[in-house]
């Protein structure tokens, strides 16, 4: 027994819902299979808050223009050129229209949030955050007649010769264990929550990674597609990883466990040694590098150390800093060698040159004579209480994916486009993001390619 839809969408986040809505508006019957329970629906979308779209003029919520060319240059810079220019430029062009299209689907914008002024010109923020955005998309999809099933895990895809035929379900839906559809949109995300898979590339270190999204982002659909002949894209070790509080839960800690206090102090590893220039770059460019830096340290743990003079310089944190009246006391609480920590801080303090501190620009507060140097915002750590945040790598999403063309159509090994399989969102983000990240890009990829995939999938189903 099996039922047949025009378009089957696997996944439940931004890309999946944009695809479902766009396919439904294109006249197709659509079923969305979300593997997670209803509360956890939407994968990483539930933790997002904004989207980067090109626009030629300021709007009610955007403080100035952000041209296609500037977007392209930003993308080129963060990826170091590891991007598919044709696809990327296509996405950037399409992103302009998404600003309005997504509003037509019920999503509301608001000006950039407090503490994110640097994104006020380039990024549009969702009123109420990513879950509010998802809620709006689900309401619209359901109003349009899209069928949605939760706890609907797909265990196998029946694909013949690059042609999708059916999806097999773990749990029967209305008595059926197989869903047939004329077109498939795979929008089921990356494999960031699949520790075993991460270990293939990272080894045992992956056991110490914290996963910022739900445990449902296991990449099972991605794996099935790659196993069944879809062409792979992206470096499997590449992922978006930030330094998050080591006290955060293993999964789904979301945005609130992040730390952005690196520039206000120093970062040491478990041997109380510094290992990277804490003053290299401004937020948000520095934000996305510290996860990987900590991942490379022994036991994947590090400590941001600062003193009481800077406590109010950054956003309040979920977990309070760990405090000590002396460096030795702090070291004791962190289980670091007190002598080593005192030596590191003494040497650092001695290397700090006088300068005019300004954390909003690349200022002239530098160190001299230590390795690694701190090239901006270097100030002595000397006013007790001394404070620390323990941090670990927090994995947001992975870049390994399925190769697609401008129609969001998957390409098979050998380069032949699939007859009826499309992909959108994280599962194909690696086409555009070879490495690096710029805030809000994940959602741009999701909405733009989701909309395209849905449209093309519906078109295929009609023909």
């Amino acid at each position, binding site marked *: 027994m099996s039922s047949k839809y025009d378009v089957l969408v696997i996944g439940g986040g931004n890309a999946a819902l944009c695809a479902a809505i766009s396919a439904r508006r294109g006249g197709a019957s659509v079923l969305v299979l979300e593997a997670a329970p209803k*509360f956890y629906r939407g994968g990483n979308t*539930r*933790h997002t*808050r904004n989207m980067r779209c090109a626009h030629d003029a300021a709007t009610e919520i955007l403080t100035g223009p952000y041209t296609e060319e500037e977007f392209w240059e930003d993308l080129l810079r963060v990826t170091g050129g590891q991007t598919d220019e044709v696809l990327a430029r296509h996405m950037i062009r399409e992103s302009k229209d998404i600003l309005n299209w997504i509003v037509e689907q019920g999503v*509301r914008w*608001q*000006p950039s*949030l*407090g*503490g994110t002024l640097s994104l006020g010109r380039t990024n549009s*923020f*969702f*009123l*109420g*955050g*990513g*879950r*509010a955005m998802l*809620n*709006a998309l689900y*309401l619209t999809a359901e109003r349009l007649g899209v069928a949605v099933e939760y706890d609907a895990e797909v265990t196998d895809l029946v694909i013949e010769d690059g042609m999708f035929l059916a999806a097999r379900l773990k749990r029967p839906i209305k008595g059926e264990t197989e869903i047939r559809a004329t077109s498939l949109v795979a929008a089921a995300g990356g494999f960031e929550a699949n520790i075993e898979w991460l270990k293939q590339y990272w080894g045992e270190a992956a056991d110490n990674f914290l996963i910022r999204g739900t445990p449902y982002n296991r990449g099972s659909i991605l794996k099935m597609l790659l196993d069944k002949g879809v062409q792979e894209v992206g470096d499997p070790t590449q992922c978006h990883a930030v330094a998050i509080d080591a006290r955060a*839960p293993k999964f*789904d800690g*979301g*945005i*609130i466990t992040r730390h952005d206090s690196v520039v206000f102090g120093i970062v040491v590893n478990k041997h109380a040694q510094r290992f990277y220039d804490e003053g290299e770059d401004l937020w948000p460019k520095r934000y996305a590098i510290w996860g990987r830096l900590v991942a490379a340290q022994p036991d994947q743990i590090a400590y941001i150390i600062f003193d009481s003079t800077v406590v*109010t310089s950054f*956003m*309040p*944190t*979920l977990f309070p800093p760990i405090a000590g009246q002396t460096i030795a006391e702090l070291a004791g609480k962190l289980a670091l060698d007190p002598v080593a920590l005192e030596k590191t801080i003494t040497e650092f303090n001695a290397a700090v040159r006088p300068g005019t501190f300004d954390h909003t620009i690349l200022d002239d507060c530098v160190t001299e004579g230590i390795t690694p140097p701190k090239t901006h915002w270097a100030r002595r750590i000397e006013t007790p209480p001394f404070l620390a945040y323990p941090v670990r790598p927090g994995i947001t999403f992975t870049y390994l994916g399925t190769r697609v063309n401008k129609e969001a159509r998957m390409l098979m090994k050998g380069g032949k486009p699939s007859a009826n399989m499309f992909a959108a969102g994280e599962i194909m983000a690696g086409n555009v993001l070879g490495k690096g990240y710029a805030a809000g890009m994940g959602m741009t990829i999701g909405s733009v390619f989701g909309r395209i995939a849905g449209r093309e999938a519906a078109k295929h189903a009609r023909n």
Partner: protein
Amino acid sequence: MHGTRILDEADRLMTVCNSCRYCEGLCAVFPAMEMRRAFSDGDLNYLANLCHSCGACYVDCQFSPPHEFNVNVPKTLAVARAESYAAYAWPRPLSGAFARNGLVISITAALSMAVFILGFAVLNDRGVLFGVHTGPGAFYKLMPHNAMVALFGAAFLYAILALVMSVRAFWRDIGTPIGGRADGGSIFQAIRDAGELRYLHGGGVGCYNEGDKPTDRRKLYHHLTFYGFLLCFAATSVATLYHYLLGREAPYPWWDLPVVLGTLGGIGLIVGPIGLFTAKMRRDPALLDEYSYGMDVGFIAMLFLTGLTGMLLLVLRETGAMGPLLALHLGAVFALFITVPYGKFVHGIYRFMALVRYAQERRSEAGS
């Protein structure tokens, strides 16, 4: 940490929310929170009273239950809000009235109505009580106007005194760091925000009550109730002016201002409370502060009774039912007045003061 467990929980949530801030655009609570890094009891009581319980932040929150962070801001602030009424109540010994408020209100209402009925019966003979009275001064055949004014004036003045004392304590407690007197601009802003229930709107999406769809109509019912109440109050005030300035005695003809105002207000006071009560019955238990159920329903019931007895009195005032109905209506109004400082009525005053404080903070932030 704080005086009560609910304030501890509110503090925990505000710490979570302050490191997220996704809900910043939904209402006044989150921008006010962002102006702080730590939260005193006064801060939390301020935020609790700023919250209009639109439910949007619960539906939008990625950390609401069943997530282990267990973030439920509307419910936590609702409980904290109710507890704040008791914490600031004057005089202190009467703060206990909030604990079993539904019972207190219903007993007060029942006693008050019974006393009026008995009083009418004892002081008037049966012929007068069940008689048909028409024309100016008809009501005062049952209870002399001066007695009515003395009784209700005293109840009204007491209510105002108790309210002023309670709200003063609240205002002082939420005063830091701005302190000082409220400026005219902030008060005007707060009048507008309260008058249109600006923050009962989910930031523009609408409010949530029964589930995850923004279908809530409490804003409409609240407008009907609140403006109905104001119209009834205006009717009474106009009638008092008629009485003392123009020497015209109630009852007035149907087309006269006090009756027109009272009729419109009465309709609001009947329809609005029914809507609010129905919405409360349907409210998602996750959002409902069940501890305040009695207080909320008690207040809704008092407003409804006031509206209903008033309207019945208007319709049947030229029949023999006028006497008993007048007693019931006066009993309801009297009970409403004397319980004003010790029931849900205070939510309007506290929230208004919180809105004034918020307007002040916004102005001072914009100015700095």
